[in-house]
């Protein structure tokens, strides 16, 4: 049982971490709470399904195509929709929820409500310290770690990364320093949606696909970013580990765990913010006044 918790906990945490980092990035840079974030993740998974099943493409080609398409769709939706309403915080929330609902309904129309599955990229399993692990799970973990390191390197080491962090810290000053703020926001949106799409590609072979699969990860990543502190990458990672494991411990220990996993994870989040209201690694944003 303990080994199951570790394997499934790590996979779930990895996927949540990818999603939460992307969500946290665009929130930090553009102050947009993109509630359609996990809808893009679902869209990527379904695109892979339709490209492999209907178009009969190779799984690797379809994964790359799906990631590219979702990133373009996400960036365009930012360009055409979100940017026009972003001064009004509540309206931005609704526009992103509406986008998520549109994606969900489009998928429901296109693929029906029944669960679907995607073939695994690599089959088989192996024993590590006496625990049977699917190769697909190992691949998922490896890609997650690689991507998190790459994101970190991009933000810390490259010029664009520095510009993105500067924009997140202070828009006005970044603008005065000659950073093209709207371009950086577009870039961040592309990176953020791209990460969501890759997360979708990673879970597509592991989970069943349903048109409602976006709601649960959305709730989880909202809890994770609050738990870890908004705008902190380290916080998102640790939050994802805490909640990913909390969920799986409940599922494997209790009979009714499947129903209570969200409750327990959210309760953990509430306990943490009761003790530390700004989250574990919260960056206290200068509240923009006026």
């Amino acid at each position, binding site marked *: 049982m303990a080994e199951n918790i570790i394997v499934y906990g790590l996979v779930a945490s990895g996927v949540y971490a990818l999603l939460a980092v992307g969500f946290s990035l665009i929130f930090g840079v553009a102050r947009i709470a993109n509630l359609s974030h996990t809808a893009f993740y679902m869209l990527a998974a379904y695109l892979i399904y339709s490209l492999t099943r209907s178009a009969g493409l190779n799984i690797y080609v379809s994964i790359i195509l799906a990631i590219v398409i979702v990133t373009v769709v996400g960036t365009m939706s930012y360009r055409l929709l979100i940017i026009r309403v972003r001064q009004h*915080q509540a309206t931005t929330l*609704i526009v992103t929820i*509406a986008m998520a609902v549109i994606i969900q*309904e489009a998928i429901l129309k296109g693929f029906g409500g029944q669960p679907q599955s995607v073939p695994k990229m690599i089959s088989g399993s192996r024993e590590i310290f006496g625990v049977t692990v699917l190769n697909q799970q190992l691949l998922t973990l490896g890609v997650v770690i690689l991507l998190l390191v790459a994101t970190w390197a991009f933000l810390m080491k490259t010029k664009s990364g520095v510009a993105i962090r500067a924009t997140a810290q202070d828009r006005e000053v970044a603008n005065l320093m000659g950073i093209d703020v709207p371009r950086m926001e577009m870039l961040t949106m592309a990176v953020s949606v791209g990460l969501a799409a890759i997360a979708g590609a990673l879970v597509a072979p592991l989970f069943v696909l349903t048109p409602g699969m976006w709601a649960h990860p959305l709730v989880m990543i909202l809890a994770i970013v609050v738990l870890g502190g908004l705008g902190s990458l380290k916080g998102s990672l640790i939050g994802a580990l805490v909640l990913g494991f909390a969920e799986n411990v409940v599922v494997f220990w209790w009979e009714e765990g499947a*129903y209570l996993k969200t*409750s327990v994870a959210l309760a953990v*989040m509430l306990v943490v913010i009761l003790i530390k209201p700004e989250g574990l690694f919260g960056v206290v944003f200068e*509240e923009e006044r006026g």
Partner: protein
Amino acid sequence: MNALAAYVTKPFKLLRSEIFVLPWRTAVLLVCLLLLLFPVISREPFILRVLILASIFAVFAASWDLLSGFTGQINFGHALFFGVAAYTAAILNRDLGWAPWATIPLGALAAVLAGLVVGIPCLRLRGTYLAFATLAFPLILLGVVYANPGGMTEGELGIYGIASLSESRVVSYYVAIPSMIALGFVMWKITDSKIGLIFHAIREDEVTARASGVNTTRYKLLAFCLSGLIAGIAGGLYAHFLKGVGPSTLELLLSFQVIIWAVFGGIATILGPMAGVLILYPFTEFVLIRYLGGLSDSSSPIITFLTELSQARLLVFACLVLLVLLFMPQGLITWLRDKTEKVCPRCKLQNVAWRRKCRVCTAELD
């Protein structure tokens, strides 16, 4: 004799000086009268049912606006108040056999308690943190409900077979619609009072409000409780109207739905969210299901298209909301009000846009 005449003419004077001067107030009066007189025109049970549910959700959306629109405490888990009150009312009715007039207020009190439970820990949080943290409460409860299929709340199935508001649908209608009008008026009065002003100040700048000697914590808690109370009344009415309550009253979708209605109508107006529900809810129920769905046997391509549209009702709903908000980011009612009204530069009173001079202080309107 003169005094008597004054009493008789006073309502008319009030009507003329307070209501007919502004187009939206006239519109509200007309809509209220129309709703109250509606059973004279038609008593079709389906239409009455949709209007009753719309009025219940209108109260619910307006209570969200009181907390999130006015006070700025964006609540992502508003379904908590609705669900807690609905379940409390249903359990009291089922186990103790109390009548709806007793269970609805008690359900609302339970929702106030829920407001305190949410409010006290969340008052230390601000803005987006608060929004995401409030999301947790109804979902935690939902998990508990699902995990106890044999418990008091009967798990996934929900509680059914409790007392109805009234055996006659027309009587239920005359409970729901006047409640909506009365609660809407009360909320509007609250936002127009000193408390409302403080709520507004907290939203605009909490630090300044505190510096001006306002105990903002107490007022934020008050906003949570008031909003919980009113949402709770809506929840109780809902449970007794449908003669049952299920886990859908706690779901994420309801929490999001209420925000969609409120933002569509225009936040921080009370009227906006109510109008949002009264437009969107009957729209999705009647237009798409009943009238378009009923025409399916015709072979015209337009009808076929419209029938398909009615099957994708959530899609149409989302697209409609998206389009309206792209062109009117502040919401429908706020947009309409800005088009038809001007604020007097001197006395800050609202005037009809086509007036040249202020109706009270006769200052030039620009």
